[in-house]
């Protein structure tokens, strides 16, 4: 278990903070780590910054994430990983669609792709205040598009509807998406309509992160080791997609949107 001091904490919105620490390991865009909060829990987090300094971006939703939010610079966390596969960028014009905290897992692939491709990034959130990384997307050189459910910034409505408009105008080779499954489902459907391949980044409850315990089962797939990035068509037909998760006891349970 790698132990790292938190070097820097950035408040991104009223419920989301980024934590930066020294890496010392290689990672690819789309991979995640298991973050140990000693004495509390260990939880999966996508890497939102990859490099000499690594970063995670944490939405406070429960016991472990709240505890992490109470941490100060200098406090220690444990890190296992990086785990899982990564995005496989294809074509020269990309549309990246992020819902809520989903932009965290997409930010590194945006920053890599923009070096030699044309990248549009559509970020959606409930309100203007909850839009994450807008500035970082602009700084990367990608084209920023915003959507808010309440209309307080950018397109008034769901980011998947904004994506629909963009697809009607632009000629994209690939879509990359991370966010609530209902949103990703719409994105895959849009991809079918416009003949654009989609890669989605999925989440489920995890224990091992290394494909052994079966806690992250999504039909016959292990989110941690077969994913977290999947071809949209691979997940679309699964009975669990946008419907079920497994609770910590392993029971199939309805999926309640939580992002």
């Amino acid at each position, binding site marked *: 278990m790698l132990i790292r001091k938190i070097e820097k904490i950035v408040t991104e919105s009223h419920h989301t903070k980024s934590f930066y620490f020294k890496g010392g390991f290689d990672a690819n865009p789309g991979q995640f780590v298991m973050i*140990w909060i000693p004495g509390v829990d260990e939880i999966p987090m996508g890497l939102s910054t990859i490099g000499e300094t690594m970063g995670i971006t944490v939405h406070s939703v429960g016991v472990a994430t709240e505890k992490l939010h109470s941490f100060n610079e200098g406090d220690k966390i444990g890190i296992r990983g990086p785990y899982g596969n990564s995005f496989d960028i294809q074509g020269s014009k990309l549309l990246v669609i992020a819902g809520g905290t989903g932009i965290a897992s997409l930010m590194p692939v945006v920053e890599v792709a923009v070096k030699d491709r044309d990248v549009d990034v559509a970020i959606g959130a409930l309100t203007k205040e909850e839009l994450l990384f807008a500035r970082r997307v602009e700084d990367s050189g990608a084209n920023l598009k915003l959507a808010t459910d309440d209309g307080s910034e950018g397109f008034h409505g769901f980011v998947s509807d904004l994506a629909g408009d963009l697809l009607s105008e632009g000629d994209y080779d690939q879509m990359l998406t991370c966010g609530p499954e209902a949103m990703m489902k719409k994105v895959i459907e849009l991809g079918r309509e416009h003949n654009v391949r989609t890669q989605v980044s999925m989440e489920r409850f995890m224990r091992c992160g290394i*494909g052994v*315990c079966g806690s992250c089962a999504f039909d016959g797939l292990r989110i941690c080791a077969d994913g977290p990035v999947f071809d949209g068509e691979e997940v679309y037909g699964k009975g669990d997609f946008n419907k079920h998760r497994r609770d*910590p*006891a392993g029971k*199939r349970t309805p999926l309640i949107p939580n992002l």
Partner: protein
Amino acid sequence: MVDLSTSVGKLQLRNPTMLASGVLGETAELLLRVADSGAGAVVTKSIGLEPREGHPNPTVIEMEHALLNAVGLANPGIEAFKEEMEVATKGAVPVIGSIFGKNVDEFTKLAVKMEEFGATAVELNLSCPHAEGLGHEIGADPKNVEEITKGVKGSVSIPVFPKLTPNVKDIVELADAAAKGGADGVVAINTVRAMAISPEAGMPILANKIGGLSGTAIRPIGVRCVYEIWEEVPIPVIGVGGISTGMDALEYLMAGASAVQIGSGVWIGGPEVFASVCKEIEEFLERNGHSSLNDVLGAAHSC
């Protein structure tokens, strides 16, 4: 063509590899995937009477050549597990229901349910090293092993395989007790009680502090246990602990195991590990002029 089929008592297997309990075995679709990947049989996650969330994370961590886990018998409970069994038993290979309880009565109830749900055999978890009042806390005592085995045998007609703990002075006594209870075979071994501490955090890493070690590092312990049981107790043995290659499996088979289970081998090898282990066993047998797996079972005892 080399014949890889084998049997453990009445249990017939197309090849000697089985999925070990607790690895990818909690959900039907993953059990089916492992069956499709080439395993000869699959063992379910250990199931109890009631749902259990298990221990908090961290519950599984990587060590050098090993995994350390204290999942803590997380499971959805036997009633909810029915729907997984309904789907899992439609696969091409036997499904063995692993169960845990705190006494004969609980084990018996669970075994009856597993038989009703279509399990080909039951495996009795008398060996999990990190759950209070369960697993090895009961299974380390030969009296309990005999009594629980006898109780379960008396209430089901499918084969019964107690799974034994290596965390005792003499595992042969446990195998002997299982045989006296009427077991159709024994499974050896479960994980080895162990701990890892993070010096920088100044505390054990597992939330449960103590867990069970599995993987390559424990193979010599498992092989020794199987070898000792074979020498002393006339009962079929299923060998488990640290198998990820055909040569690893052959160690157990030559020590006297009739079949093997693979758990942690899925970590590096993925679900494809069953097919690759079988292929390597087949190649070894061919290279050495054997036409059947039977030729090498227990071979290490004839020297």
